């Protein structure tokens, strides 16, 4: 289905300065029994967000009212582990539209791009600076311009280019859909199959 378009996003951030956050933390396996894509946001970071008793863990950043926004500023190697796309659905369903890190696990990155959640890779030093800025001043905003491929920390003016493959960029900017693209190539695919058998 065509996705929500993405062009420019300016927002405050939620900081999660931990390394190697795996998809089991993002959405634990026991919540994967659903057969639809909706509703996973309720269990995003479930075991960090809630205590065993079911009450909210006030130490966890999502429960701290000081931090909010559509941009999750994560740590290095975010999204490693399981290929579960439910992790991306949960992040998106919760309300995030971009995740920032110094690097992402490959499958997570593909899943994010396929669901309109923009993964943005910035240098490690800048990521660390951004974490500190947000922790000191939670109203710190960032601006993401997908067309120009720029990521800017608004109050400081720090700005970097981020990379994204041109096909996915086009899909996100225009809300295009991969399956429509693939279906338009059926003849080419059939021709490939015929050639391969021979």
């Amino acid at each position, binding site marked *: 289905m065509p996705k929500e378009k993405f062009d420019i996003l300016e927002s405050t951030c939620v900081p999660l300065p931990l390394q190697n956050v795996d998809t*089991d933390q993002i959405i634990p*396996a026991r919540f994967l029994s659903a057969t639809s894509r909706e509703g996973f946001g309720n269990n995003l970071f479930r075991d960090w967000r809630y205590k065993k008793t079911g009450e909210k863990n006030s130490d966890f950043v999502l429960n701290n009212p000081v931090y909010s926004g559509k941009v999750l500023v994560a740590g290095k190697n975010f999204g490693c582990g*399981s290929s579960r796309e439910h992790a991306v659905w949960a992040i998106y369903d919760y309300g995030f539209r971009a995740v920032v890190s110094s690097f992402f696990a490959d499958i997570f990155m593909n899943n994010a791009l396929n669901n309109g959640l923009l993964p943005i890779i910035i240098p490690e030093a800048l990521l660390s600076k951004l974490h500190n800025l947000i922790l000191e001043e939670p109203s710190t905003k960032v601006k993401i311009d997908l067309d120009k491929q720029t990521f800017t920390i608004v109050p400081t003016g720090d700005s970097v280019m981020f990379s994204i493959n041109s096909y996915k960029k086009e899909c996100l900017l225009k809300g295009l859909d991969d399956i429509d693209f693939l279906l338009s190539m059926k003849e080419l*695919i059939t021709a490939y199959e015929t050639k391969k058998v021979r």
Partner: protein
Amino acid sequence: MKPKTLFDKIWDNHVVRSVENGPDVLYIDRHYIHEVTSPQAFNGLKERNIQVFRPGNTIATADHNIPTINQHLPISNELSRNQVDTLSENCRNNGIELFGYNHPKNGIVHVIGPELGYTLPGMTIVCGDSHTSTHGAFGTIAFGIGTSEVEMVLASQCIIQPKPKKMRITVNGVTGKGVTSKDIILYIISEISTGGATGHFVEFTGSAIKSLSMEARMTLCNMSIEMGARGGIIAPDEITFNYLRQLPSVPGVKNLEASISVWKKLQSDADATFDRELEIEASSISPMITYGTNPGMGMAIDGTIPGTIDKKNETSFLKALNYMGFKQGMKLLGQPVDYVFIGSCTNGRIEDFRAFARIIKGRKKADNVTALIVPGSKNVERQMSDEGLMEIYKNAGFEVRQPGCSSCLAMNEDKIPAGKYAVSTSNRNFEGRQGPGARTLLASPFTAAAAAITGRISDPREFITDMKNNKK
């Protein structure tokens, strides 16, 4: 012609179209599906009112959330039962072959694919499961995908995929006593970290790799995702071909020997270049165990947990040790163990159960240990019976369960309770992976067996007395 790696040869052979400055449209020969990551993809097809494009190329199984006892009864958990039933319905409606719950060939997707002859050299294979990298053991490009990509494959037999970089890991020499391919891969991940191969497809080679059995190679490739690699691949050789020759059937192959003569060409050219190279001496690897909450936090079984750590990594490191209830500079040998799990797509094959049996034979399970012994497939379960392993397990006080993913990700009832320690032959020691609050220590079947009979973390080498010590 420019020299090519094995990976390049297979990839280039499957490109239907290159998108300019973008990813490739890659044709997929074999698509495996299971109950957890496929329902939303089938829903997508329904919403578009389209059918599966090439149902013959997709093989299905139910494995992730099925119970491992009383499989003759319906699944009691309603959500799990619904997911398994949904898979059956989707397969029926689309003409997809299903080795589902209770099927005599049911099992974990990455165990049954190879044993039923569906995984063959030179193929592209995907599945909505990160451990799809397992199949690279046969000289295939195999990798895990998300559900949107499952939908792409169902709709068009293709996915849109950027070509990863290439890395080669060469392990030369002879491994020491009690060292299995699980230890080799845990060692590599501990050296390069859990994100150390991200963005790369890894070819494993070297004398220590070439001497491994197919089962051992599958264990190795299975965990290549745990260092972030897109996948792992091993060039097919006589060991691969002999494995295929002894299979009851190889569906879709009319003349196996003719195919083998083609597959023999699946090798990296001698002067092919890789973006990264890593060389490891096999003799420097000990039996391994993890102490933290990602597979990169591993050490030699007789080692100590690092005492100091880079400032940048400190928060995550201390959080992990706190979760595990361990301290910096601590030894793990002798620590009490509550659970032992042998099974999963990593170590749920017949050789793994033979290895475990070698240590428990003639001994008794420790009273303080609860053991979850879960074959990777019905076929493995039958082999265990045929080889007399069931008797060995029973005599040593172990109960063997029925096949499934089980306690590897604890989607079913096979959960490790909060705070308890489990020595596990699975692939991930993430927080809560084996149940909320569970503390997982990843290790080989030998090390799991040593823990099961002593009730403590123990060095498996002390229990291996015969001479054939290098193989599982």
